[in-house]
């Protein structure tokens, strides 16, 4: 069981949120996430803060028709969550630092959690978005003949030498769609305005239609890259809600599979970043190394990217001697084959030149903007959710990988060193692998709530489940690391060169399908 987290839930008044945020901020707490839940005729807004192992949820009950104050003045990183609340719950948030006015996502069905609001939702009230336009000089809010703001990307007559360059959603370096409006001054990016929602499927709400046991398969498909960890995170949350004790062997195997997923992710990322700065052979070689681990995945689970091996209570398949043997051989091979690639990444002149000092995120900024995972650790923070000791991490020895430079190079080095760390962790876990059952029986239905935290390759992910004693959960919420890293990305993009944009976008290791769910 997850021993993490001193977890408290406190009820607050909606207006208290500001004062609380101020207080937490001074105490050095991190805003980990915000989400809404519909509870008889009102929306509950949950603010989750974390400090080390402690997790605190503050819950404000907001009656329909009332607005809540934005906390973006205190935690800038909240703008995502609050815009999402506006879009999905039709909840008005006042004084938002970056207000998309109900157009954060373009939805087929407006305010899906408030079907009673009808097609109007909150969206129709205001004109299309031009977020962040206010601070880019007066002329940057161009309006059309009807006085409506014109979308930034088609706006003309931006003052002086400023231009707006659209980036994405379809772009050669982007494996997934995200759109950025880049405000340029000559070659320099002054401002980057993200618009997301190209992958927003709305799978959190699907939990109301799928049995909680079957939902594992949907959870896995939040993202096909960290699919195992998504399945595991969801299972951890449900298991903790129901008080299921997972057998030790399953915990160890989950750890092994999770670390394999990390190796897969990091080697893949190395390739993608090499592609972003135009080093194609390095891209190909990194992906070649990645195939080694995929073969082992296929051998153990039957799938290359979607595994469906995790289930509530443990795992669906055991691992035998031969598979372990294959895994060990694969690890040796990866270690050996990664070596020349690592020296290309860290010593090759053009690569070093391209990445050193680019996109620096200072230690203070990283924390402030709520960055996570390798992004945060590359800026000097030794924060790693695995230290909370879920699955078998409690029994393994490791320390977070930290770099201090905060630039693209540091982020690359963190990921390279983490790959080596994962190899070490798998060896430790396999050496200690206990015999026994691989799954505990599941009896009853979830009743209650839990917020599980898992360290994904990209950083901490949060899985929140809330059951009501039926086979269908009331609410499932996942907050993924990329979602939290976008504010930091926007920050590093400010002041960079246009040519660096693809690389900077890639160094946060964006996973858009996670982000938008």
């Amino acid at each position, binding site marked *: 069981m997850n021993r993490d987290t001193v977890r408290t839930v406190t009820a607050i008044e909606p207006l208290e949120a500001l004062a609380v945020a101020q207080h937490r901020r001074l105490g050095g707490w991190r805003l980990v996430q915000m989400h809404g839940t519909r509870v008889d005729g009102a929306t509950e807004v949950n603010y989750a803060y974390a400090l080390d192992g402690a997790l605190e949820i503050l819950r404000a009950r907001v009656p329909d028709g009332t607005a809540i104050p934005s906390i973006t003045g205190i935690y800038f990183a909240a703008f995502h969550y609050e815009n999402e609340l506006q879009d999905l719950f039709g909840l008005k948030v006042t004084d938002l630092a970056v207000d998309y006015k109900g157009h954060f996502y373009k939805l087929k*069905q407006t305010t899906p959690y408030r079907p009673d609001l009808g097609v109007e939702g909150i969206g129709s009230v205001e004109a299309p978005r031009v977020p962040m336009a206010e601070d880019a000089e007066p002329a940057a809010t161009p309006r059309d003949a009807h006085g409506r703001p014109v979308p930034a990307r088609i706006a003309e007559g931006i003052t002086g030498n400023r231009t707006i360059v659209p980036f994405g959603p*379809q772009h050669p370096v982007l494996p997934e769609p995200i759109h950025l409006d880049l405000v340029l001054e000559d070659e320099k990016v002054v401002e980057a305005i993200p618009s997301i929602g190209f992958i927003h499927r709305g799978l959190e709400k*699907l939990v109301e239609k799928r049995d909680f046991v079957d939902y594992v398969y949907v959870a896995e*498909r939040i993202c096909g890259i960290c*699919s195992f960890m998504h399945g595991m995170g969801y299972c951890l949350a449900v298991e903790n809600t129901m008080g299921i004790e997972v057998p030790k062997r399953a915990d160890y195997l989950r750890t092994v599979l999770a670390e394999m997923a990390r190796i897969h992710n990091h080697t893949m990322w190395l390739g993608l970043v090499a592609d972003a700065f135009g080093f194609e052979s390095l891209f190909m070689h990194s992906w070649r190394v990645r195939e080694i681990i995929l073969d082992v995945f296929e051998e153990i689970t039957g799938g290359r990217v979607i595994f469906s091996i995790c289930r509530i209570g443990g795992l669906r398949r055991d691992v035998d001697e031969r598979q372990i043997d294959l895994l060990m051989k694969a690890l040796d091979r990866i270690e050996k084959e990664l070596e020349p690639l690592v020296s290309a990444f860290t010593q090759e002149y053009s690569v070093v030149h391209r990445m050193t000092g680019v996109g620096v995120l200072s230690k203070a900024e990283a924390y402030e903007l709520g960055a996570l995972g390798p992004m945060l650790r590359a800026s000097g923070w030794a924060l790693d959710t695995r230290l909370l000791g879920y699955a078998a991490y409690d029994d393994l020895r490791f320390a977070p990988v930290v770099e201090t430079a905060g630039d693209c190079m540091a982020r690359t080095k963190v990921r390279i060193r983490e790959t080596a760390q994962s190899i070490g962790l798998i060896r430790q876990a396999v050496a200690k692998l206990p015999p026994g059952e691989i799954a505990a029986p599941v009896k009853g239905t979830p009743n209650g709530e839990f917020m599980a935290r898992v360290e994904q390759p990209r950083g901490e992910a949060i899985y929140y489940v809330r059951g009501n004693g039926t086979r269908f959960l009331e609410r499932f919420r996942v907050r993924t690391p990329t979602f939290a890293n976008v504010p930091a990305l926007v920050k590093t993009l400010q002041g960079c060169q246009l040519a660096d944009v693809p690389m900077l976008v890639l160094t946060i290791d964006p996973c858009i399908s996670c982000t938008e769910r």
Partner: protein
Amino acid sequence: MAFLKRSPWMIHYDGSSCNGCDIEVLACLTPVYDVERFGIVNTGNPKHADIFLLTGAVNEQNREVVRNIYDQMPEPKVVVAVGICATSGGIFRECYNILGGADKVLPVDVYVPGCAARPESIIDGVVKALAVLEEKRRALPPRARRGRRAEASAQGGNA
């Protein structure tokens, strides 16, 4: 025109997928499966592409983007729906923001099932698409059949 059949260029776009199929599409191009050795190139530019590999069940916001990419591709062109999401909406079919498959927005020529679609089946799908591409080429008026460049200039690079 035989070159078109032997070394088609493809464009890949993620129409609200989970990523699983997308990395498998990329895996086709990288070592182990490596279709690039046959001259099949993944291009980022729709105007260079013959085959459109679309993954994912397509959501509301992606509808226009997908359409836009398709419209920019020169004739003849084929669309391959990769993965069960793109085929029918798959696991996300009942989600509130999903249109339910690639054929809700585009005329799809080849469906590749699988969740995730395996690289082998994606390659198989592309090979099937080549046959369709050839058929479509034959159906074009003679002038447009000469070659891609002639055709692009004849039609202003747009279909």
